[in-house]
């Protein structure tokens, strides 16, 4: 997936260019967020609290929060705030936006990490074996799984999982993360990690118990995409010249498969894993809604429901930052892994 026959620049030049390109993209994203969520709605106080406050109160609060300043001044203040880590104060929450994020981000991170592990496990395994055992029943099954899981809405799978595994079989709780009583001492906010760090066995079991259903649902859906990609990559790699060359040199089948084919089939997957990140966030919003998971998706949905433009703007800004940084990291890793990717 490289820049074709472009004259190969140096790795350093690629890295520097890529980092430099991040800034305009970030600026554009932040500007879009500001235009959409600050400028478009007009007066955020009125939009949020208009039916609860008198006109004078709205006016006073708008003045105090600087919503009456010229738009350019507000824009400058917004960008300055982002630089200094200030994402504003939601109108419907006592915490700052950063406080809300600090409280909810670990839950989302834990969910998505677990899902990612499921996705990679299922995707790489089923995909690679499907590619190797092409056109066998396993392959057909693997592909069918890929197609169907791709077509299934994640929230529907979540509801069905609840129906079967929570209500019928009673194996897992229907939702929520963990009751405060069982929760481990808070170190990272990731309950699984915290319980391991504090050597709290029962908390570890309880946190996994709550995590399995939402995490597997999210992971299987992302994994369905991996299956398809890993399989196609494996097929392409298996018929490539260097695999043939490896065969010709008399290298054993097993060694060709694992040392040559499999490793190269995984290179594009690294990119894909990164690219799925945006989807993972979207999927997390839906999964959190189904399983009442107290993460960032739940937080932003709550702000949206309250029409709290300031809160929405803050969280969306955070998402934008994360997305830009992740996409930068993926491209950097790709540049390091694949020397053909250069500007």
């Amino acid at each position, binding site marked *: 997936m490289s820049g074709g026959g472009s004259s190969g620049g140096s790795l350093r030049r690629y890295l520097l260019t890529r980092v430099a390109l991040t800034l305009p993209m970030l600026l554009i994203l932040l500007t879009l967020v500001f235009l959409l969520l600050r400028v478009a709605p007009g007066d955020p106080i009125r939009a949020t609290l208009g039916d609860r406050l008198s006109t004078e109160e709205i006016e006073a609060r708008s003045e105090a929060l600087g919503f009456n300043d010229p738009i350019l001044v507000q824009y400058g203040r917004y960008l300055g705030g982002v630089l200094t880590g200030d994402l504003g104060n939601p109108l419907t929450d006592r915490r700052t936006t950063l406080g809300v994020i600090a409280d909810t981000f670990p839950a989302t991170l834990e969910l998505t990490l677990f899902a990612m592990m499921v996705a990679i496990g299922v995707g790489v395994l089923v995909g690679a074996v499907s590619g190797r055992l092409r056109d066998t029943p396993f392959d057909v099954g693997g*592909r069918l799984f890929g197609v169907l899981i791709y077509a299934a809405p994640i929230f529907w799978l979540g509801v069905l999982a609840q129906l079967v595994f929570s209500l019928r079989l009673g194996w897992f709780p229907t939702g929520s993360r963990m009751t405060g009583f069982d929760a481990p001492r808070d170190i990272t906010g990731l309950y699984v990690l915290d319980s391991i760090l504090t050597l709290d066995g029962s908390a570890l079991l309880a946190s996994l118990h709550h995590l399995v259903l939402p995490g597997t649902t999210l992971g299987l859906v992302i994994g369905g995409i991996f299956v398809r990609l890993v399989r196609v990559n494996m097929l392409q790699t298996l018929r490539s010249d260097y695999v043939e060359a490896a065969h010709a040199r008399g290298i054993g089948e097993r060694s060709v498969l694992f040392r040559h084919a499999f490793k190269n089939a995984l290179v594009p997957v690294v990119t894909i894993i990164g690219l799925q990140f945006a989807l993972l966030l979207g999927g997390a919003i839906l999964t959190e809604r189904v399983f009442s998971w107290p993460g960032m998706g739940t937080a932003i949905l709550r702000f949206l429901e309250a029409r709290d433009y300031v809160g929405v703007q803050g969280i969306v800004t955070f998402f934008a930052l994360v997305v830009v940084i992740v996409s930068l990291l*993926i491209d950097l890793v790709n540049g390091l892994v694949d020397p053909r990717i250069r500007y």
Partner: protein
Amino acid sequence: MPSPLRLRLQHAVRPFRSASRTARVLVTVGLLITIVFGVAAFLAPTFYRYDGEQYRVEQPDGSFEQLPRLAPPSAEHPLGTTRDRYDVLARIIDGGRLALAVVLFSTLIAMLIGVPLGLLSGYRGGKLDRVLVTVMDAVYVFPPLLLAIIVAFLLQAYFAPGVPSAAAAVGVVYIPQYFRVVRNHTLSVKQEPYVEAARSLGAKERTVISRYVLFNVIQSVPVIFTLNAADAVLTLASLGFLGYGVQPPTPEWGYDISQAIIDITSGVWWTALWPGVAIVTLVTALTLVGEGLNDVINPLLRARGAAGAKLDAAADGEDLGEPANVDPLSPGTEDGSGPGLAGRGFRS
């Protein structure tokens, strides 16, 4: 001598006829299922006794009898009824019409914005191109579902939620895809001798773009359309599920599933199961069409040689199954300006 129209038609279906059998089967099966959904919605009143928003039946004496609440599947209600006394099957049929309408309008919106901008950006190049590419990249890296939610949320303040606003929210997500594919294709087409010939004959820029570039570039649009169509159904359902779709009680599959969450605690499964089955069926059908078409049209795109040696492996292998993830949607590769659409998986 065949008429010009007939020649054109023959030219248009030629890639289809020369495509592999698998590709043709995929397209045909997918199209058939999609058509069934479309036709069922329009013919429903003739063969099905309930309407998606109907919760009571008028009796001969003029009084109304309400439909049963949460009735299990039976001969009277093949897929059961909901908490609000709606017939599940009727809602699924109507939901299909809504989904197809939103898919059509949303991709139309995305095309109407993405294609002209892509043409302009690719043809003019320079500063305009760089700015547009960065803006589109920025929109593209943003989580699509969140983008759709925000647009739907903003539109809510001004319009009643309906097909137009849902289509706009879903459509915004796909603008960058049309933009990138068309832009990158334009970049390569504008180097072709016939474009240069037209320019040196003194053709106006507008003529060159609309007569020479557009018609060569437009062939990549149907593939994106069909691949997006499947994704658009899922995006709409997700919006509906979160309460940012169309106005209830309009039958919409995602919204119906969100309403069914309460039901499962009392062991009622039919209100949650069937709308999801409908989504899976329609999305699979549209994906089949998309991947089949991709197979059909791709050899032409590959012949242009823009894709690297790596893709040649897929080029000779119609039997690779789903090369859809590799080719025409990975335009980002051409200038290395970032990740292609390839791995995105088109899912929200």
